[in-house]
């Protein structure tokens, strides 16, 4: 069990809504990651992102933890909701809001509250400069 995997697990457990993506909330480098973030924005959710491109081990450890092979991965209150296709479909049918409400109560409505955290160095979470 690696420290990195522990930090990824902590992030999943502590962040109400966290998306592991290619890039950051300000600069996305993958169409699928972007689709997932747009779906979250579309319903007015606040969210935290983790950039898996920072270190290839993040993706390896994340997939080992979640048993989900692809990026992005969106978690709500510690539980995997799905990748881009699922989050987009849930947003279209209204089920994304229902899922957020069910797991987080009213607190999930935080439009524009977006940040990127790092899991790759040292203990705990580090907010990246400029975010």
């Amino acid at each position, binding site marked *: 069990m690696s420290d990195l995997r522990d930090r990824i697990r902590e992030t999943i457990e502590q962040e109400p809504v966290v998306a592991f993506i290619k890039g950051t909330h300000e600069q996305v480098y993958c169409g699928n990651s972007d689709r997932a973030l747009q779906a979250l924005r579309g319903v007015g959710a606040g969210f935290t992102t983790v950039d898996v491109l920072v270190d290839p081990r993040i993706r390896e450890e994340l997939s080992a933890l979640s*048993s989900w*092979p*692809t990026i992005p991965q969106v978690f709500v209150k510690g539980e*995997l909701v*799905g*990748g*881009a*296709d*699922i989050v987009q479909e*849930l947003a279209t049918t209204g089920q994304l809001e229902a899922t957020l409400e069910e797991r987080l109560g009213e607190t999930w409505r935080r439009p524009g509250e977006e940040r990127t955290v790092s899991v790759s160095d040292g203990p705990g979470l580090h907010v990246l400069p400029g975010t």
Partner: protein
Amino acid sequence: MSERLESLLRTAFPHARELAVLDRTGGGDHFHVTVVDGRFSGLPLVDQHRLVYDALADPLADGTIHELRITTRGDG
């Protein structure tokens, strides 16, 4: 490559009502698969997609599939 994916999916979902593999870019590594199968009924989407990922575990692991979009449905 589409044929390999379709064959893997047919093996995993022998009773699928609909099964399609689309090579999105023509490059043989960006795919959109669609599976309509009664066994998805009542399952959360995350579990439906896990069954597809399980079926395609080998091409996902060896890098054949660079990007995968999935559409699943439990009813016709």
